[in-house]
């Protein structure tokens, strides 16, 4: 891969100062490729932070056109873009910030059909999908292909985030072995809540790719911004998990 240019060293100077990160960390981000699945309230901010941090390549997957109700939180969408493609708007905004960034804009949501290819194109996935079947499709591919998956989600003023490291941590289907009947597609959301967990998700990606700090491996961080309660919780791996399990029952599936 191409070494950091003098211009890049100038742009990223202040984060290269972060102890444990340095030029080696910056080079690792430049060489890295990340899939952000849906660039909505969460994914917009994840993508923006990763673009700002100097990730080399982003694959953005999100179907559909910009609607008025996107604009309270989907910060890569603009009023002028109402009715036009979401991923095109995201691509344009990210390029304004970082013209060196390579972007693959996919005007589709992640499905069972396209997940293998999309995950195959990147080093890490940040999962920002509003439906569990999309999350499960990415989780399966990440486990199969050995790619880290940052899973972040919110509801109302609460959020949850964990980082799944294949072979080391529980996976998403260890936690949720079925499509949760409790989850509804439409949810109350302030942009500041989805944006908060998005920044944490971007930081998890930077930590894993740049080999700095300790990611939330096997740990679920939960937060309620109504009363600012943050809690770290330890997660259990399911030995009979059909995706990552090691029991004979799991392997035979």
């Amino acid at each position, binding site marked *: 891969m191409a070494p950091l240019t003098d211009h890049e060293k100038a742009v990223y100077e202040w984060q290269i100062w972060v102890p444990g990160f340095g030029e080696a960390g910056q080079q690792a981000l430049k060489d890295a490729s990340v899939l952000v699945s849906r660039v909505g309230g969460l994914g917009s901010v994840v993508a923006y932070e990763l673009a700002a941090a100097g990730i080399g390549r982003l694959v953005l997957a999100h179907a559909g056109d910009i609607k008025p109700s996107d604009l309270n939180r989907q910060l890569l969408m603009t009023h002028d873009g109402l009715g036009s493609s979401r991923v095109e708007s995201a691509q344009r905004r990210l390029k304004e910030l970082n013209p060196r960034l390579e972007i693959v804009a996919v005007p589709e949501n992640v499905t069972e059909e396209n997940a293998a290819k999309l995950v195959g194109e990147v080093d890490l996935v940040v999962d920002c999908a509003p439906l569990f079947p999309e999350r499960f499709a990415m989780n399966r591919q990440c486990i199969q292909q050995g790619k880290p998956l940052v899973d972040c989600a919110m509801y109302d003023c609460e959020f949850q985030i964990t980082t799944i490291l294949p072979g080391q941590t529980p996976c998403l289907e260890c936690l949720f072995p079925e499509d*949760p009947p*409790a989850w509804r597609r439409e949810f109350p959301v302030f942009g500041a809540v989805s944006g908060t967990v998005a920044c944490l998700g971007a930081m998890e990606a930077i930590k894993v790719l740049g080999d700095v700090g300790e990611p939330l491996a096997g740990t679920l961080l939960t937060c309620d911004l109504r009363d600012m309660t943050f809690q770290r919780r*330890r997660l259990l791996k399911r030995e009979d998990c059909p995706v990552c399990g090691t029991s004979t029952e799991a392997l035979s599936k």
Partner: protein
Amino acid sequence: MQVTVEYTAQIKSIAGLAREVIKLDGPCTVADIARQVASARGEDLAGILLDENGQPRPSILVFRGEDQVRWDDTSTVVSDGDTITLLSPVSGG
């Protein structure tokens, strides 16, 4: 003995409160706690916590303090002063 039960996200909005202290006759499992609050708080909460056979739904995560507990774990006994969290699956972005 008494324990604190915490609810999150959609479970919290259906229960109508974030946490409550419940009284127990004696040591019990996390599944017993789910069934007790489901029967105390009515059909809507019962429907989200339990399946048609009255078993806790596997997609609801339960924690004793900071540690996740498997629903079928009968060796983890809930004791006086514990905080049990019923975590609602969320997927919003």
